[in-house]
């Protein structure tokens, strides 16, 4: 589990670092990058599920962040701002590619509906869970991934997404409800 948006690297004076980046200091840019790239890439990978796309999104996030760094006023933590860009970039990229994948995914899904007998023996419950997570609306999936998989707090998620903490909690609860509904016919296997 990761997280802790506000203090990515103890002792790192980000305000000073940002000033140096704005002054054209490439080493400072690299330091800033090093301090955040792991979490941004992990989040991008979790959200996209594709290495190429995750790389593209991570690059795009940092390119945009450096490009608009002068506009960062410090009202929130830098990493909150950076994560906001990352989530936005990832969701935009996913929208672009989903149109292409959707038709094939629907066909594949139709092919994979098993008979009741097969369900009991299905060893790929995990895959079914992953498919169910894939099918969650982005609104819920982002919160589920950030909270349950990457360990961000609701306060952090709220800050990144620009929603109240309560909204983040509600979205997580709905995400879990949907996963429960999607998998309830396999409840017996879960209990094993």
């Amino acid at each position: 589990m990761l997280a802790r948006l506000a203090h990515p690297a103890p002792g790192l004076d980000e305000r000073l670092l940002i000033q140096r980046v704005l002054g054209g200091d490439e080493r400072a840019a690299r330091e800033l990058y090093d301090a955040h790239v792991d979490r941004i890439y992990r989040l991008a990978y979790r959200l996209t599920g594709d290495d190429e796309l995750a790389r593209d999104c991570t690059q795009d996030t940092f390119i945009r962040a450096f490009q608009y760094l002068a506009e960062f006023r410090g009202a929130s933590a830098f990493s909150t701002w950076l994560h906001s860009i990352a989530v936005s970039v990832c969701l935009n990229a996913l929208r672009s590619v989903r149109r292409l994948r959707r038709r094939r995914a629907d066909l594949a899904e139709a092919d994979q509906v098993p008979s009741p007998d097969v369900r009991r023996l299905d060893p790929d419950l995990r895959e079914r869970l992953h498919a169910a997570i894939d099918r969650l609306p982005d609104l819920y999936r982002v919160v589920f991934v950030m909270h349950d998989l990457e360990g961000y707090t609701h306060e952090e998620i709220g800050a990144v997404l620009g929603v109240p903490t309560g909204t983040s909690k509600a979205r997580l609860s709905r995400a879990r409800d949907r996963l429960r509904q999607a998998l309830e016919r396999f409840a017996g296997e879960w209990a094993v």
Partner: protein
Amino acid sequence: MSEDRFDELLRRMARDYNAPPETPREELWAAISAARTAPRTASRTDRRAWPWWLSGLAATLVLGITIGRFAAREAGAPAGGAPDGPVLEQAAIRTASEPRLPPAGQPSADAPAVSAPERGQGSGAPLGGHRVPLRVGPRYPAEIPAPPQRLARADSRPAPRAAGESPDARASAEDTAANPVYTLVATQTLAQGEALLTAFRAARRPDELDPQISAWAREVLLATSLLLDSPAGEEPVLRGLLEDLELVLLQIAQLSGSPADSAERAWINETLRRRDMLPRLRTAVPAGLMAGI
């Protein structure tokens, strides 16, 4: 099963959902650094969306200006002599039916040009009904390795004018800077290229590739080629980006969607990565523009 128990099981089983590998820090940084050092081709003031009809108008303008420039250039070449009749008609006839020959005094064999990958289609070969012009100048930065030697020389069109080669070229570059229409069309074309390449990269297997992507690539390729031949193509950084885009688009346009394409697709992906195409395109396209495409 209780909710708490379900949530705990859920977390446990979901842990390896899209489990990320180790961060490729150095590769990512190299791409980010390359994109950061490339100057932007459009300023933030271009970010506002424009009405669709203005895009059409801009494209028409570029087409007209391009044809006019070609016609004027070829009409001025002493070897062929000035053509009779209206300049635009002559250019249109030539564009539709003849391979272009370099004007007298311009070397053709020594001018490197990209042809289609060595699969039988040469430069200028008809592609989906379009005659696709191709060219490549000395454009790859030294730190980015060139792709495998799959490029062949083509002699069917004149070499590109080198930046600063002539007063005419300099004047054209100034035209570009002064003319927002070129910037507008260039930005739109680059945005379309970015969307297309993103879609291409998203298809992991040949059967996931949208059959229409080749047709889409041809459309963007045509716009890219026109831009390269317009004054917009005189701006060195933009030209480099457009030329790289043109090369990749040509390859995508030739994909048939069959499993036999896998080697070609792998090579295209390699080109995309080596040239940092997507980061460069994204740097060139103002943020927010993609929403309007």
